[in-house]
């Protein structure tokens, strides 16, 4: 499987450039799309999911242009949007059955649907209306529907938002299990997701790709260039003015600053092992 995105552009009517000349090549395995809220991740994923046409550029899946072969792409696609709802008064089972039918499943649909429900741990709730599900249950339902039909291309947009740690783990397991021989694109603003799952990633900011490569490539950018220290509340402003602050965090009630510096900073700064989050902040601040 090979998904190639070339020179992709999309500008909305309100003037916002959601996708700004994006070029990506994505092969089998998990691919992480990292970016802050509003970076254009969802626009890009919707475009790949054929829900939205770009202004220019192309996307090909195994050299097939997806915009002229939408139906072909859709046959191979599993898509979990960032936000979704369901029809009122429809049980999880019926709803999945419905989607399975629309996805072209002809035989053993019942087994498939029940199996999927079991896989996402919703078997006991199969007769419950999806509209009455809690956020986590609904999200798991969303995953189940995306997995129907064993898709070659699975797009999951911010899937772990609202999941508790156990559910998140379960979800990560499912994803890594199926990602071997297909493309899984995962968008998230949670750095940890990418670290745990992805071999390849891209960081998107203001619609354009600011970084692409493996997480270790990303870490290499900031090697030996991150320093941290505790500061008093009153000093914050002056530090922000004088240093390139990557992040400020509360640590046991006190403010802890991570700063980027080409030169080695001395005490009270401590040299810090750069993590992906620092890279994320570094790229998105620049």
């Amino acid at each position: 499987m090979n998904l190639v995105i070339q020179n992709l552009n999309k500008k909305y009517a309100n003037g916002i450039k959601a996708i700004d000349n994006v070029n990506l090549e994505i092969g089998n395995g998990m691919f992480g799309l990292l970016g802050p809220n509003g970076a254009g991740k969802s626009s890009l994923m919707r475009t790949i999911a054929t829900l939205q046409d770009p202004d220019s550029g192309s996307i090909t899946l195994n050299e097939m242009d997806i915009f002229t072969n939408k139906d072909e792409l859709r046959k191979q696609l599993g898509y979990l949007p960032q936000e979704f709802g369901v029809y009122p008064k429809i049980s999880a089972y019926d709803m999945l059955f419905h989607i399975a039918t629309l996805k072209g499943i002809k035989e053993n649909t019942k087994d498939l649907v029940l199996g999927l429900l079991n896989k996402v741990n919703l078997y006991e709730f199969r007769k419950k209306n999806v509209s009455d599900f809690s956020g986590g249950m609904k999200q798991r339902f969303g995953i189940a529907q995306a997995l129907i039909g064993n898709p070659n291309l699975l797009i999951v947009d911010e899937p772990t938002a609202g999941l508790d740690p156990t559910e998140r783990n379960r979800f990560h397991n499912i994803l890594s299990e199926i990602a071997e021989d297909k493309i899984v694109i995962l968008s998230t603003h949670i750095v940890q997701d990418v670290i745990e799952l992805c071999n390849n990633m891209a960081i998107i900011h203001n619609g354009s790709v600011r970084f692409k490569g493996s997480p270790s490539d990303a870490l290499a950018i900031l090697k030996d260039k991150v320093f941290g220290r505790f500061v008093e509340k009153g000093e914050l402003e002056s530090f922000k003015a004088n240093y390139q602050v990557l992040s400020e965090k509360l640590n046991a009630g006190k403010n802890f600053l991570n700063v980027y510096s080409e030169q080695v900073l001395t005490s009270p700064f401590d040299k810090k092992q750069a993590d992906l989050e620092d890279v994320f902040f570094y790229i998105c601040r620049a």
Partner: protein
Amino acid sequence: MLLNILIFELQFWKKRVFPYVFALIVFLLTILIFTLEGVSLGGDANYRNSPYSLMIWYYVLGMILPIFINTFISSGVTRDYENKFDQILYSLPVNRNKILLGRYIGGLIVIFLIFLTIPLADILSGFMPWADKELLGPWRWDAHLQSLLTLTLPNLLIMGSVLFLIAAWTKSINYSFLGAIAVVVLFTSISSLNDKIDNKTIAALTDPFGFTSIFYHTKKWSLYEKNHFLFILDWKYFANRLIWLTLAILLWILALNLNKFSSPFRKQTKKEKQTAKPIFSESIFSNVVMDFSPSYILRNLHFQAKMDFLHIVRSPAFIVTVGLILMILLMNFVGIVQSDSGLSDTMATTSNTLDFLEVVTSMINFGIIYFSGMLIWKERDAKINDIYDSLPVKTFTVYLGKILSIVYLVFVYATILLIVGILYQIFRGVYVIDWSIYFAELYGINLFYALTLTILSMFFQIIVNNKFLAYFLSALVIIVEPFLLKWLKISSNMLSITPELPRRITSDFYGYGIFKTSTIAFMIYWLLIYGLIGFVSYWFFVRGKNISWKERGREFVYRFSNSKMFFVPIFLIAIAYTGFMYYQTQIVNPYFGEKESLEREAYYEKTYRHLMNYPIPKATKVDYKINLHPSKRSYDVKCKMWMVNKEDSIIDKIYINNDIHRPFKIKFQGASLSNEDKNAIVNFQTYKLTTPLKKGDSLLFEYEYFEENKGVENEIKNNRLLTNGTFMDFSSFTPILGYNKDLEISDKSDREKYGLPTKAEFSPPLVRECTHACMKDYIGGMGDWVTIHTVISTDADQIALAPGKMIKSWKEKDRNYFEYDLSQPSKFFFSIVSGKYEILRDSSRGVQCEVYYIPQHAHNTKMMMHALKKSIEYYSDNFGPYKHPVARIIEFPKFSSFAQAFPGTMPYSESIGFTSNLVKNPEDVNEVFHIVAHEMAHQWWAHQVIGADMQGKTLLSESLAEYSSLKLLEKEYGMDMTAKFLKEANNGYVFSRAFEEKGESSLKTVDNQGYIHYQKGSLVLYAIQQFLGEPKINTALSNLVKKYGYKEPPYPNSYALLDEIYSLTPDSLKSTVKAGLEEIIIYSTDIKDAKVIKRVDNKFETSINFSLAKNSSDPNAKEKKKISEINIGKSEEVPIRDYFDLAVYQNAEDKSRYGKLIHKQRFFLNKKENKLKIISDKKPDKIVIDPYFIHIHKDPEDNIKKL
């Protein structure tokens, strides 16, 4: 606090587009209503902006108030829930009730401001360049203010509260919208049911709109009053508003409390019991079978339709529509069963039942529009569209599936209607159910309309891509289109937005018969057109986030090329079929459109009106040979007509109105065609006689006529030539000679438009000197008294009828032949009939009596025969002999619902009489008996004595026939039924005179005004009979027959009857009798109090205290060019010097009108205020002023007082 919320709400609306859009629509509509030609709310002779028209306009807009309320008030309640902001908002330290109240008031203010554009539009209408300033009256700020404060504002508060409650309860704008529709339907239904309630007070108090009490006064208003008066607000109005406003406040309080609880539509489902969990193998995920073969499309289509249908059925909206359908039908049923029109009821035949079911059509249409929108937005409303749209499902299966699900829905509705219809028929005692009509109408034509409406409303939803705007457009199209078509004068059924079909008349005679072909042809045409609309909808069907037109344009290109192979052939077929339909409806079966007809009629009048009095020879003897082929829809006629010049002048030319599309082949002895003019509405031909006709000279006129109806027609041109039940009068197959003034345009504004002078009076004025002016009778100038001989043939299974006695009948070449002879010279006014009839025969006074009917309609034939015999007896005993050997009643299909009298023959529509239900309320006026008696009376009054063609012409026919039948009704059923009949006549007269526009004549000068010659005629003549006694009236009437019956012209006029009556009237009654015949007098009564006391001599003394007003209108008030000069219906009070009857009754509660008469006494009154006493032996419980209508009253109910 409240003020802040209110200001916030107003600022909120200030920034929205909706208030401006609505205001603009109301403003423009008002301007159009006030200025567009041919549109008028209060009648043509009303100012477009008269106080009365304004009232109607505010009333009409009041009907759509719920849409305003839903937009501006309900949305304020549901806004936070829809936006999921409720949790935040209600966690703030604000008073929820204050927020809601603030928004409610804010919405009210916005709506009220929108309504203020009406007075503004009124002011500005006069400045519109196309406005006819003659039609605009002064700007009446007081009328606007009155309507705004008494019609708009209270209804806004009341309906606002109801809808507010619904919104607060459901917390959903969709259900509020549905609620708005329900409120319109429900309120309108209650309001219209109220019309059927006899008790005016209850009706006025329960009307949710509060209009009933206002209409009660205005519906009897004359033109003058409509143009000048503000409407009357009586105590009933205020009591009604008080009741409903109280209810509104209660609903308000309920709504505020309801809001604290969660919505019923968001409740939790029950816990399911657990079952053992199976073991799942992993392989099912990797080894799934995905099938995208063509069967995938079919499976999906079916699946989509099923899911969407279930979605509809599970929605509360569905339950609401079904509930409303059942409720409306139930109310309609109750209304029919309990209605006390005093007239006999019609039987619940299948086609009548379909009329009964029709009340819910608009409800179902709104349902279809609502559900179409709901389905188009189903995925997006559920926010599942991102998932749904990325599935491999084909866009067209989604679209078609949604249409299909509405088709399923309409099947459900149709089945509900079918069940209700059958139950209704069974309940009303009809067990003969015509399944074919049920299925064809409910599952055929209804489904067709539903399907096209679905495609149309989905088309709007898809193209506009805004649910509420699309709803608005859909509703606008179905409401405005009929007016638009009328205004544009479009006649072709091919040119409209929603499908038009040729008018069809189903009948128990033939089912769909001749209407079937054209109806189906048009249905196919519309299905093709809507198929194309379907393609366009598919091309632009929104999928994914591609909602800008640029993106949709790209989708269009893609989908268009994908669907080309289906679209192109269908498009070509549609074009070819349109061509076929054009060829069939315009070339094979040409007709003149409305506009062309008017132009040709105007040309005809302008060019040939000067020939109006050109002499025409009169027919004396006619010989017809007619071959009817009902099954082939064709017939041919050969006619020989012997004519004589009865005029003093020499005739050298004969003008003939020949048909342009189906010409008569004319053969004239000694005459040649010298000119013809096909530019007129007819081919106006001039024949020059080689030897001019002198007085007394005769002439043989011969012609042949052939007519064949085939193919598809825009409207069925000859809907009288039917496969069973053909009924055509002579004018269908006889050319009219001379200038035919029936072809002149009668509509006032059309006449003006084509530059024709206003027809101030339709008939020449009444003159006493009746010689030259009375040479023509009023039903046609072809002949005075003629004999007719006819040989008529028809299909083997039918009987054909022509005027006169049947001489013989025979079979020839598998056809039936009949020979008839009308030997008594009669009016040239007859019809021919052919059908599969049963015959009931009897005889009376040597006259052969026959009733022809179809086997299904035997119920009332005995009653008809009875009435026929009674009529012959009473009329020939008292008026003069009946001169025909036969008297026939012949049933004909319900293309019309009248009965008509031809010499010796009375065709009678199946929709009246033959299907009347006499069993239900035997005490009601027996319409079957009455109509037979009326038509039979015409054998004297019209066919023996006929009025000259001038004012007062129908007094001698219609009024006398109506009087005669009433007298016969009294003989048969007694005074109680007479009183009912008179009350209906009184109410009908008072109601109809309010719509008089050309001027209300007196009875003496009646000019073909039905409410005068029927209703007032029967009231006045019966009153005179009560004053003078039956023998004197019969003397007068038999004198009339002796002097004028079957006599050559000059024909009599009103004075002939008036003179006979006056000569028998004592001086003391002269002014009373004259008032009835020559004046317009209406009394109004106000009973102050009445009580009964038992006297010492054990007698009962009833005293009554009442005031009386006698109002006189000018019978010479005529139509004026300027509205400001119109004084039609302006009345003034005049002094009273009249006799009045006073009567007391017992057992008022039984079903008769008054109860048992105990005592009746006549008083002479000459004061406005009267105190009278009446003594009786028995204790009365009701007192009635003028119980048997020797005068006409504004409202007969005011004359009755329970004791």
